[in-house]
């Protein structure tokens, strides 16, 4: 069963980005606290996408999930079906790599690294939404989600720019 064309799947992270842009003053601590929520969104979204669109069930996030996502990308390439799918899978692998690299980053453990991690995740979520919008437009069965991904990408770009100032 393919992914449902329901923009609700992107509502939570985009709501976070919109929230950042509505606030007059940015409180970096408050936004960093939302990082676990963004990571959970990525896991669930990756799980849905890979299972429903690519027939790959992932578990053991991020290490085992990364291996399976990589294998799926290789399989698609061998089948000559890479096109817009490969970049989407590549960004998921990049997200998993960032998470593997910063697994021990926590406000308690290393606040500075946690900040780098947070900024990297924002950038990659924006890229994920970009690639997903392209993928969804190409497959032609997810018009509403494609539109929402496009909006989300713009919101994340604005949030990242504001937080970087």
């Amino acid at each position, binding site marked *: 069963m393919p992914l449902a064309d329901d923009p609700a799947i992107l509502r939570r992270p985009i709501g976070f980005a919109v929230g950042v842009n509505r606030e007059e003053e940015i409180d970096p601590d408050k936004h960093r606290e939302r990082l676990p929520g963004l990571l959970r969104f990525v896991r*669930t979204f990756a799980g849905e996408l890979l299972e429903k669109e690519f027939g790959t069930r992932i578990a053991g996030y991020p290490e085992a999930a990364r291996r399976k996502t990589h294998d799926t990308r290789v399989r698609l390439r061998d089948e000559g079906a890479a096109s817009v799918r490969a970049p989407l899978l590549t960004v998921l692998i990049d997200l998993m790599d960032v998470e593997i690299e910063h697994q*021990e980053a926590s406000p308690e453990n290393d606040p500075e690294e946690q900040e780098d991690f947070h900024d990297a995740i924002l950038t990659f979520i924006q890229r994920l939404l970009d690639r997903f919008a392209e993928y969804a437009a190409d497959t032609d069965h997810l018009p509403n989600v494609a539109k929402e991904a496009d909006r989300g990408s713009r919101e994340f770009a604005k949030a990242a720019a504001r937080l970087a100032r």
Partner: protein
Amino acid sequence: MTATVDPTALDLAERLANLDHVLSVCLLGSTARGDAEPGSDIDLLAVVDARRHVKDVRGRTFRTLGARKVQTKVLDEARLAEILGGRSTFAVHVLREAVIVHDEGHRFARLRAQHSPDAPVRADPTALLRRLELYDDLDWCQGLYLYSLADCYSTGRAAAYALLGQRGNFEFSAGKALVRIADEWPDLRPAAERIARLRPFFMLADRDVHEPLPFPYRNRRPEAEAAVRAAHELIGALEHGAAR
């Protein structure tokens, strides 16, 4: 050190101790308690001489060993002192259960001796509530509840440790902590039992370890909502801990 220490964990700890800038290495978690099961995580703490060496040492640690996950916290001495003073659940776990494998000049032991292992945990329910924020509404999961169930388990487990620790009643094994909650607070029994049943989802989502699942994780919205409520209930008890 006790005779029950896991030799694989000990070997990893000794290798870590040989890295440059590492002052102390301890075993944490089930390997420190001596109740590790085959496939249990290996949890290590490495203390380094300066903050600038944290990243380098962390980059040299193992993440997995065969099918086992290895989690190594690398901290500099100053940061460790701050953490121990904060009395988080992690800090109290280190004070009470860390097994020292290597300790140059007894620096870790001296630092640990400055803090009472018996003073209660200072819990922060806000951080736990943030972890559940994403699941206030489960529509966006599109019927895939594996990760929400896994997160409810890890959040509920953290709340259980903190709830007990807040009263100076320390237990850092998830299974035992949830049983103790159920025994000591009958009104929390259903929530604690529900969270305990979610462990296989956590093992699958986080570790790729396949244990029999109590129910399928697809399209079981009522169970997913009940899991979120149970985690909230344990955190709520933590917020009102002093009054209980």
